[in-house]
C-alpha cells in the first residue's frame, strides 16, 4: 500500500511501495510543489523506476524555477536503488 502526504511543515512523506501503479497518486502531490521541498523516505519500503521517474521529472521542473527536492531518510533498499541510478548526482540526499 503506497501513500503520499504533506506534513504540516511542508515536507512530503512517502510510505509503502512506490511502483508504476502509484504514479498518478504521487504526481497529484509532486505536481503541486512550487518551491524547494524535503521528501521523507523513512516509511517507504520499495521504489521502482516509475517512482524514480516521478522524482526526476519533479526535480527537472523545480530546477527550471530555481528550486529542488531534498531527499532525507534514504536507507536500505531505497538507498541501493538510488546508488544504482546515481541519483546522488542529481539530488541533495541528506
Amino acid at each position, binding site marked *: 500500500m503506497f501513500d503520499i502526504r504533506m506534513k504540516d511543515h511542508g515536507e512530503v512523506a512517502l510510505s509503502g*511501495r512506490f511502483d508504476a*501503479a502509484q504514479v498518478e497518486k504521487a504526481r497529484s502531490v509532486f505536481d503541486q510543489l512550487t518551491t524547494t521541498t524535503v521528501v521523507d523516505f523513512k516509511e517507504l519500503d520499495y521504489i521502482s523506476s516509475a517512482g524514480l521517474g516521478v522524482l526526476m521529472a519533479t526535480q527537472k521542473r523545480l530546477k527550471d524555477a530555481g528550486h529542488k527536492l531534498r531527499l532525507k531518510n534514504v536507507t536500505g533498499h531505497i538507498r541501493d536503488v538510488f546508488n*544504482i*541510478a546515481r541519483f546522488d548526482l542529481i539530488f541533495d540526499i541528506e
Partner: protein
Amino acid sequence: MEKKFKRDLRSLEKVFDFIDNFIAKQGIDHSIKNAVYLAIDELFTNMVRYHPKNRNDISLALKKEKNKVIIRLIDRDVEPFDITKSKDPNIQASLDERSPGGLGIYLTKNVVDNIQYEYRDRTSIITLTKNLGRKNV
C-alpha cells in the same frame, strides 16, 4: 510456482503477494525480496505498457534451484523486444540530459545475475537468475 496475471499495472500488488508466498514457502532469506520485486516489477510493467491492447495474461514462474532463484516471465502474442540488447541509460549525465527511459531494465540488470531472452511463436520468454547470498537491494 506459476501464476498468470491480468495485463494491468493494478496486478502488481498480486504479483508482490505471489513473490512473498514463494519466498515464505521456500524458506528463502527475506533480504532477496526487494531485488526480486524490482526485477519482476520492471519487466511486468514494460509488458503492460508496450502491449496495452493485448488481452493475454502475463505468466510468472518462480523456482528455487540449489542456491538460485529462477524467474520466468512469459508474454504471448507480442512483438519481440530483447532486453539483453537494450542500451543502458547514461546515469552520469546532468539532470538536464537525463530521462527516466531505460532505467527500469538497467535496474533489473543490476539486481539479477543472469538474463536470457527467447522469442518464438510470437512469445517473449525472459528468464532471470538470482543467486542467493549475493548482496541485495
